[in-house]
């Protein structure tokens, strides 16, 4: 036996309790892994756009209309190579719970601008020619078992009614975080059916020189400041970060949830450790009598709690990775959702911290335990 063996023996003393504590830590770090991955994936998604693109939207927010006439004025800007626009559709296919992103795009200018969208089935011309045509990510085709050439009917939400689309092309994103479960169709189709309400959602500007992005963005917003629709111009990267979180501040929510879970588990684990040490007061006194120093005994308690949280943390994170590795329903909102190495590292660091914190109080208690007093209590 060794000191480590003694720590191990203490861990197996009450197997059920150790198991339950490890299980609660596993659950916590499983959740942590999932939630944290949502954040990192959002961040990654936000980095898809190159600085070579700017997005101009209504300064009042994404849901406020932009006059189509802005397009021409934006195109005339020094340093702007081309302009296109896009709109959020927000429909669903059969199951309203089953969300994926659909965009109404100004296809003739959008497609040339988005070189990272590679058409792999059907063809771009067929998509461009037909008013009700749709361009669909291969992931989405697979998900619903759709095929190029098929007509699918989506239910609108903001734009009510049934919407028929003919799938004319399928794409694979050159960059996986662009997502392959998006659907694009013609802005004109959306406009025709709702001419009084539909305007471009946001303009996308391709720049000649990425390094001038900030300067051009400021100039554009200056120009429209006193117009009927003041603008806010940002890099596409920043826009996407905001866009994916338009339903609420997901990052914030996730952080709050994660923190709450962390502290809940902290209390559970700390309580367990305190119980474990309290019922061992006599043994700790005996070990002190044998010459174990306060520091050594405190270290053993800490080692015990760190072992619990590290094992639980590692297993929880591995579980989260497993859960996210296959196809998952969050894929269309958070393309490429996965537990990153950074999340693993952060998770294990947190697990270590959790172990140190939960072990600290009982470690301190056992260090300052008076042997004479404790031995009196046990006889």
């Amino acid at each position, binding site marked *: *036996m*060794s*000191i480590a*063996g*003694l720590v191990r*023996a*203490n861990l*197996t*003393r009450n197997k059920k309790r150790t198991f339950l504590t490890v299980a609660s830590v596993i659950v916590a770090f499983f959740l942590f892994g999932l939630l944290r991955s949502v954040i990192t994936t959002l961040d990654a998604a936000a980095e898809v756009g190159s600085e070579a693109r700017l997005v101009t939207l209504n300064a009042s927010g994404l849901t406020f209309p932009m006059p189509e006439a802005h397009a021409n004025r934006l195109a005339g800007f020094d340093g702007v190579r081309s302009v296109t626009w896009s709109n959020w559709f927000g429909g669903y296919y059969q199951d309203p719970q089953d969300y994926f992103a659909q965009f109404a795009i100004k296809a003739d200018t959008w497609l040339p601008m988005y070189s990272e969208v590679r058409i792999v089935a059907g063809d771009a011309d067929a998509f461009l020619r037909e008013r009700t045509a749709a361009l669909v990510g291969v992931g989405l085709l697979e998900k619903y078992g759709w095929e190029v050439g098929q007509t699918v009917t989506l239910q609108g939400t903001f734009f009510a009614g049934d919407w028929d689309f003919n799938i004319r092309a399928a794409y694979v994103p050159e960059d996986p975080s662009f997502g392959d479960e998006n659907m694009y169709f013609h802005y004109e189709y959306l406009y025709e059916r709702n001419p009084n309400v539909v305007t471009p959602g946001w303009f996308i500007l391709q720049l000649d020189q990425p390094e001038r992005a900030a300067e051009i963005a400021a100039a554009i917003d200056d120009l429209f400041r006193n117009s009927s629709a003041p603008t806010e111009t940002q890099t596409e990267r920043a826009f996407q970060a905001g866009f994916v979180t338009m339903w609420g501040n997901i990052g914030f929510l996730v952080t709050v949830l994660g923190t709450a879970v962390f502290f809940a588990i902290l209390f559970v684990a700390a309580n367990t450790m305190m119980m474990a040490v309290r019922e061992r007061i*006599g*043994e700790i006194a*005996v*070990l*002190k*009598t*044998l*010459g*174990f*120093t*306060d*520091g*050594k005994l405190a270290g053993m308690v800490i080692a015990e709690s760190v072992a619990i949280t590290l094992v639980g943390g590692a297993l929880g994170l591995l579980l989260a990775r497993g859960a996210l590795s296959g196809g998952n329903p969050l894929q269309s909102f958070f393309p490429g959702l996965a537990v990153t190495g950074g999340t693993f590292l952060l998770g294990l660091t947190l697990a270590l911290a959790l172990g140190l914190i939960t072990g600290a109080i009982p470690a301190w208690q056992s260090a300052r335990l*008076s*042997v*004479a007093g404790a*031995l*009196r209590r*046990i*006889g």
Partner: protein
Amino acid sequence: MSSPASEAASAERGASPRPALVQISGLSKSYRRGSETIHVFDDVDLEMHDGEFLALMGPSGSGKSTLLNIIAGLDTPDKGSVVVGGEDVTRMKARRLAAWRATHIGFVFQFYNLLPVLTAAQNVELPLLLTRLSKADRRRHVMTALEVVGLTDRAEHFPKQLSGGQQQRVGIARAIVSDPTIILADEPTGDLDASSGDEILTLLERLNAEFSKTILIVTHDAHAAERAQATMHLDKGELVR
């Protein structure tokens, strides 16, 4: 070996050929309980020589355990000094004291106080975890100690698989495994039936006779005390030999 009586006498004459192993002088201890102060003992002196086997008797609450704890450096006196092997225990810092205890004190408890999660051998090995001994050497020491107490065949048993007397023998093996300077036993037979208690006393006697262990045993039982070379009485704060 000279008889304890003649040794005590020579100590009194100040003609002892060697200094006492344990030299307690002017020891006082009191506890405060709220506003009340309990004087456990006052100005107690005690000498123990190498190889002595002494018994300490006294009514319950007279301070026997307190005295033992102070000798082991587990409790601190209000006044006085406890010099063991030339070092004053009462002046040592906690860290130093722990190391000192590991090498000089073997403690035997009334309720054995074995760790339930460890086997007999592992319990005996505990003090050796604080040494630099190799695993093989530790094992050898453990088996030797278990052999002395006659329990080699129970090495892999857990405490709950052993009788009280056997557990106490494991407790004694743990106390002697690191070959300490002095063995302190606080009512080691207090929880045992007469015959098991007798075995334990015989074992302690043997440790003293065969291995020249210095032993201080606290007991209630006059029969038990008779096994020692001399008996001291602690009563109403005074120690008489």
